[in-house]
């Protein structure tokens, strides 16, 4: 079963604009991770935020975590056509081992 749910399901923006994706989850977590998947490929890890952290940055990526609302957001600034992909949030819950993925957001960046 999926732990996280992403919103929106699909997002289409112009190159240079910012893209924001949201993720909500149901149970307490150890950490939350964001992944990207290009068509026909495996998922690639982008960023990990621990349950005691509120914000994290990596290049053009900014992730926030609100454990009281059980939600996270991924912001991609100054988007590029190459950012076109599906983005998934994933949470580590339960025994602290298994990583459970949400349904993903399909991002399309038009040039």
């Amino acid at each position: 079963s999926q732990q996280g749910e992403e919103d929106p399901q699909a997002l289409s923006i112009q190159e240079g604009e910012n893209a924001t994706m949201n993720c909500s989850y149901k149970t307490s977590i150890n950490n939350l991770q964001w992944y990207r998947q290009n068509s026909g490929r495996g998922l690639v890890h982008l960023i990990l935020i621990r349950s005691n952290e509120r914000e994290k940055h990596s290049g053009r990526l900014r992730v926030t975590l609100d454990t009281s609302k059980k939600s996270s957001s991924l912001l991609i600034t100054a988007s590029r056509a190459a950012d076109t992909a599906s983005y998934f949030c994933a949470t580590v819950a339960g025994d602290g081992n298994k990583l459970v993925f949400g349904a993903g957001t399909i991002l399309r960046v038009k040039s």
Partner: protein
Amino acid sequence: DARVTQTPRHKVTEMGQEVTMRCQPILGHNTVFWYRQTMMQGLELLAYFRNRAPLDDSGMPKDRFSAEMPDATLATLKIQPSEPRDSAVYFCASGSIPASPLHFGNGTRLTVT
């Protein structure tokens, strides 16, 4: 760059046939996961291992699926007998420690006719 290797990349088979998918995790990684991805269900966790021991395979249909790690360099996922509803992309992923980021292979696209 170290990577997770999955074989075969594509597999087309007839209903009732046995299918074996293989995964070579990154050397030194001690957690291995199997996921299945479909349009309808998204990414489903099928099974995962730590130090070659199965920790959870509750996501797998037990009557037809089996997952093993015969050694630290090989993980296998077997379906016997296969059914059309098993058609999906199967991903293997490995990680260095529990709760750490996972490295994914490029998947095996299975089509059962």
